[in-house]
């Protein structure tokens, strides 16, 4: 009896988690006629019309490319900085460590609205609105706490003796970091990279404000603004959404263990 209840719960959980996504995927494979049929049709024609139309009329590939660049660059820069700062905070003697970590953490909790306006003004005076660096820089700021936090927690778990033996071998600080600590913490860094990438890929608020030129917009902005003056193209919206989501779904399936580990790291000690 207990087992049946359990398995029923499992099935419910999986079903509800995936249903909306599967429904959208289903919708994207329909034809124009099927989409506007009332009541809705459950089994699609498996047509690729909407994908084609999204690419031809709605710049889907441009959005995809921009998302890749912005998320990729943000991840690279954030991770580089996180490695440095994470190592320092985890392994070196730093004054006010608590304050720094706490300060970083509060940054991730700032409401977007509170920093969006001034950030916009800063970028405007630098002439960096509608440029990649204009979006990457705020993204790095927003994801640094996450990155530092995760990398630091992975560094912390490495045995203390490593640095001591490195020192005995005559390594300076830099060499210790790059030759010894980094390779060992690689899994943690990879985890952080995944989480940062997903965050940057999904971000909407800043992307909406900073990128107003279609040529530079990322997928979330494109998808949110898909509706035109006189058209609400559900077919194209669902096709674009699927394209925006499939890479993430793959990532989740491949790297779920790391993701779970990374997300719960630091939530509770241990």
């Amino acid at each position, binding site marked *: 009896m207990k087992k049946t209840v359990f398995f029923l719960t499992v099935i419910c959980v999986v079903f509800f988690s995936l249903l909306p996504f599967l429904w959208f995927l289903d919708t994207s494979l329909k034809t124009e006629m099927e989409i506007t049929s009332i009541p809705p049709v459950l089994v699609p024609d498996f047509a690729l019309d909407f994908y084609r139309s999204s690419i031809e009329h709605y710049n889907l590939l441009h959005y995809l490319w921009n998302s890749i660049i912005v998320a990729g660059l943000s991840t690279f820069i954030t991770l580089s900085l996180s490695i440095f700062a994470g190592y320092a905070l985890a392994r070196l003697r730093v004054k006010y460590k608590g304050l720094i970590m706490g300060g970083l953490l509060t940054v991730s909790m700032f409401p977007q609205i509170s920093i969006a306006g001034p950030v916009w003004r800063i970028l405007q005076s630098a002439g960096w609105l509608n440029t*990649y*660096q204009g979006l*990457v820089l705020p993204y790095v700021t927003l994801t640094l706490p996450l990155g530092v936090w995760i990398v630091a927690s992975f560094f912390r778990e490495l045995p203390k003796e490593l640095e001591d033996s490195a020192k005995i071998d005559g390594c300076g*600080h*830099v060499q210790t970091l790059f030759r010894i600590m980094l390779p060992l913490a690689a899994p943690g860094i990879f985890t952080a990279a995944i989480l940062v990438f997903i965050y940057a890929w999904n971000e909407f608020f800043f992307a909406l404000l900073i990128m107003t030129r279609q040529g530079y917009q990322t997928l979330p902005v494109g998808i949110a*603004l898909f509706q035109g*003056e006189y058209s609400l193209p559900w077919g194209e919206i669902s096709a674009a959404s699927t394209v925006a989501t499939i890479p993430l779904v793959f990532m989740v399936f491949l790297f779920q263990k790391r993701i779970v580990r990374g997300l719960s790291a630091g939530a509770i000690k241990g």
Partner: protein
Amino acid sequence: MVRRSFPSPFIILTLLACFIPVFFISGCEKKPEETVTTVRFVTWKPNQPEVWDEIVALFENENPDVKIERETGPHSSTAFHDLLTQKLKNRSRDVDVFFMDVIWPSEFAAAGWAMPLGELFPVSERSAFLDGAILANTYDGKIYGVPLFVDSGVLYYRTDLLKKYGFSPPETWERMVDQAASIVAGEKKEGTGIYGFSGQFKQYEGLVCNMMEYILSNNGRMIDPVTGKSDLMEKASIGAVRFVRDRIIGNVAPRGVLTYQEPESLDVFIQGKAVFHRNWPYAWEVSNNPGRSAVAGKVGISRLPHFPGGESHSTLGGWQLGISSYSENKEAAWKFVKFLSSERVQKIIAVKSGKAPTRKILYGDREVIQANPHFAGMRDVFATAYPRPRSPLYPAISNILQRYFSKAISDPGSDLEKEAEAASEEINRIVALGR
């Protein structure tokens, strides 16, 4: 020897290395070429791009020293507004000529973004254009844009159904509601489900357009054009809102219209599920297109109804051409604007892409009427189309109006006087800010 490890240069180098590639990657846009004079035209994505290609080519042929570089912005008016205003706030040099929605000229004029056209567009020339459109482009006594196409609310109806039940197009809202109710009941008896009316009542700009038509046709007003203060508390204004709340929403129109913008409301009509429909003129072509509409050929168009003692008024929509105050090619820009708004080119646009022109004379032109038979009856509608309140603070005012209307009509038990009073207070406060 003491070994010092100074990682700082190392870190700085790494950081620099990160940034360099960024500057070399450019977005997915074509870079403009450097030719004689390049006029940069910011526009939205047209429904018939071939027509625009033709027009631009025509201009470049006749003006070999000027090249037009088009930048296409997003479809939606709000998103286009954000793109454009961002450039203008930036005093960007890459915009010379741009489109303005009918509600923007005051905002752009007050902010100093649009150049006053002054003697380039003298009063004698202006009289050739529709009065409402010219009014919308005027701020503080000066003119800031040239209207290119005009839009106004019209009533669509099912000719077959009206004929079947022996009705002629309703002149008053009351009549429309009665006709709709009869038809719906009659069709229900025959087993066909249909709604009486479909319009745009979601909490967005279009709601203001729809509601203004009811209010004005009841001799009410939203804003006093002289003082700029709110007239929402007038009996006539409240009466019109009450009518919409009690007789339209959830009555002849399904409650779903509270979530509809133009596309959804039009969908209901072209699927044959509504007797009457309020929309802009663009819907004519769509409703009569057999590839998209189930009611092609059975569609009629007429002026919007009014209340007893009032007159039919439709909300003015449409697009105007403006020149950026920061443009470095103002002369060439004006050449282009003059060209686009000329009788010849407006005729091409009207005939080939069905957009209603702003020059009065074209409504008597045989070819224009032939391509757009519905324009014949619409000349008066366009001539009397009324602009929304012209103020640099219109976005704020509009938000207050949207909020008020949405609250008033979506809640059957709403206290209209109280809501109108609260909204009036806020509007007056905003207006006072600008004085």
